[in-house]
């Protein structure tokens, strides 16, 4: 980002994770609203940002729909994507929502355990996830009994956030999309497996989707089609991966 000319500021407030960076960005924006453009790389935050980000990200879903028909002559049986704020997943899912034969699974960060603070699985009611309001959006939020927002954990920074894009909350409640979670360990195994078998190093975020795909694919018939979204490259994660694997 600095190479491209940006000034990068570290966030010292709160728990110093993604949510605190968003708080700081919103504070800066409301202070300098006359000459500042606010943007967030996820389908989160106040209206209309979740819709804008969904529409921009939906290019991936539109191209997937076109390309799979060109290659296979039909639509896929299942779509799988990781869900932090939920931009890559809503982008993949959105153009398929009207096709009821296409199953969709969003994969959240299961982290190291079920307790509040150990994961970022917002749809895990036992883990402290329930509807709440954070950063201008009502959605599922990881929080304590007093409505204070919880700290989260995931080996992947991009999934390490206590809330989820509001459209995912809707798709969860309507039952159109199923949401599952996989642990840090499972994601890290999938990260290594895909690297070794395909020579593709996935982002640790996307490795969550890969991990769940491995589980789901075992239950599917050989001629069924599953699409997994590799939303990012793992180059950025090699240091995290080394630390994790050398533990």
């Amino acid at each position: 980002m600095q190479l491209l000319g940006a000034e990068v500021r570290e966030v010292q407030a709160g728990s110093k994770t993604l949510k605190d960076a968003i708080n700081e960005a919103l504070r800066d924006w409301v202070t300098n609203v006359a000459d500042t453009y606010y943007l967030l790389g996820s389908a989160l935050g106040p209206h209309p940002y979740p819709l804008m980000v969904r529409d921009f990200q939906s290019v991936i879903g539109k191209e997937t729909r076109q390309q799979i028909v060109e290659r296979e002559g039909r639509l896929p049986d299942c779509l799988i994507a990781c869900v932090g704020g939920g931009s890559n997943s809503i982008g993949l899912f959105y153009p398929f929502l009207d096709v009821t034969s296409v199953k969709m699974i969003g994969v959240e960060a299961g982290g190291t355990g079920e307790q509040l603070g150990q994961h970022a699985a917002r749809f895990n009611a036992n883990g402290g996830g329930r509807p709440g309001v954070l950063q201008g959006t009502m959605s599922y939020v990881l929080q304590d009994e007093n409505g204070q927002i919880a700290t989260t954990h995931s080996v992947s920074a991009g999934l390490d956030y206590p809330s989820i894009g509001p459209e995912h909350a809707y798709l969860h409640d309507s039952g159109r999309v199923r949401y599952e979670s996989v642990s840090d360990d499972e994601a890290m195994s999938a990260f290594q497996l895909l690297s070794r078998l395909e020579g593709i190093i996935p982002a640790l975020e996307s490795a969550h989707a890969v991990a769940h795909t491995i589980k789901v694919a075992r239950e599917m018939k050989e001629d069924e089609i599953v699409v997994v979204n590799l939303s990012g490259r793992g180059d950025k994660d090699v240091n995290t991966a080394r630390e994790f694997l050398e533990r």
Partner: protein
Amino acid sequence: MGRITEAFNRLHAEGRKGFIPFITAGDPDLATTEQLLIELSKAGATVIELGVPFSDPMADGPIIQRASERALKHGFGLQELLGVVSRARKSIDTPIILFSYFNPLLQFGVHRLARAARQSGIDGVLATDLTPEESAAFAGELRAHELDLIFLIAPTSTDERLELIARQASGFIYAVSRAGVTGTRENVSAEAEKLVKRVRKFSNLPVAVGFGISNRDQVVDVQRYADAVVVGSAIVLELERVAGGSDVVQRIGDFARDLLPTNE
């Protein structure tokens, strides 16, 4: 008629302007908060804003963020916070409003909150991040319990939005002096005065101005055109400075008195 309206009517009849101090509940602890409510009332507060600490205070600058962090270490909930209000209520008649982000209120339950707040002697609620488009259910619960719903307006609010807010607001309207978060500032912007004039086209409610007001000169200047002035971060910063001393409550009372015009 609620206590807030009565308080402003009384001021108006006497040709005076109001003073609204803000403190964060539980900073430095709930026992001190109870004493501070009483002391600020004695110091001449028209209304007291009691901040509900929140983990993610997006609309607040560093001073009130730190106060929230200090308060949250005590791990109390709204029930305990309202207990402090009911105890202070035995000694004071000054209106008290809750100044909160919406999530702690929502998790407590809006119906339960309205009832408990009313019983404890709270007079109104300001939910910083509750937009007027989403406030109908909450407003209904508050109205049913004769509690005022106070809204923020900002220099960036359009006339259409001011009108929408004016239709739902009661008690008073809180005008944010300039675009930005809470915190002390060198100057109060000229935008504040324009905003107050603009909102009066849509509402007869008293208008208070806050965000960034930290000394007597600024208080006097704002009271020239607004019905009341809100001082938050300056008081919270003073509290941070004197906390741990033996005479914290007295010193905050003196600090508040020093903010007011000398003829008061």
